[in-house]
């Protein structure tokens, strides 16, 4: 479980099947701003596996952490991401 305010990093992953972690947000540092509750984990559902609930968090990324130093300042991206996509930032 993560808490609002915690710094996390999205995992680098390239599964064969469906995932809701967009490619451009993989391996990026971000900050949890909200716990959205538990939802059926889409990646398993898409494979026809039994339904499993998983925690979903709203994570905010600075555009420069996603696109590099030439991204505009004062710009951020927010995405709702399942817990298994995230690891604590070290």
């Amino acid at each position, binding site marked *: 479980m993560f808490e609002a305010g915690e710094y996390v990093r999205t995992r680098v992953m390239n599964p064969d099947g469906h995932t809701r972690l967009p490619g451009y947000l993989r391996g990026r540092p971000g900050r949890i701003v909200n716990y959205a509750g538990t*939802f059926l984990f889409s990646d398993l559902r898409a494979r026809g596996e039994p339904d499993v609930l998983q925690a979903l968090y709203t994570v905010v990324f600075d555009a420069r952490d996603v696109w590099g130093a030439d991204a505009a300042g004062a710009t951020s991206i927010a*995405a709702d*991401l399942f817990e298994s996509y995230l690891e604590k930032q070290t």
Partner: protein
Amino acid sequence: MSDSHDHEHDHETSAEISNRVKRLIGTLERRGILTEEHVDATIQSFLSHARPANGFRVVARAWVDGEFKQRLLADATSAVSELGVDLSHWAPVCIRAVENTSVLHNVIVCTLCSCYPISLLGPSPAWYKSEAYRSKVVRDPRGVLEEFGVRLAPEKEVRVWDSTSELRYIVVPERPAGTDGFSEVALAELVTTNGLIGTALV
């Protein structure tokens, strides 16, 4: 936002999907599980409730009622239900409202597909589903907003909400200046679909 290539691409994709849906409906009809009339009536009933006027009403209420606005920002799914908007069509949908302020502008996208709060805004505009919008707004939101005629001060934060998952988003725009005496109904008439996506100011 869309050049001819995007249109061709979108049409190919929707033709594939539409063929698949036709085959599926055909099979279900042959097996006596549903009829075409039933499908038409269901879609008609859904679309008659899913209208942008719902979203406009929600925003106008938030502008005139500070307590409603707090409930909307804390838990939009239940706040929207207070106004009698039905969010529970064939699958339950969670809504989140994000507020534009003097220091923050919000804009909505779904980069993975085209998730959209249909119950509050009706079917989405074609540009919202285009690859051009979906790929560019996360990389250069200020540039995309300028294409829509929205120029923001460089120090104002722009936050792009990528609806990757279970929640559907609406933007609560800033209430326009000079509308102090306006009724809720008059305010609702000022709101636009693009305003609720964040690609226009109101």
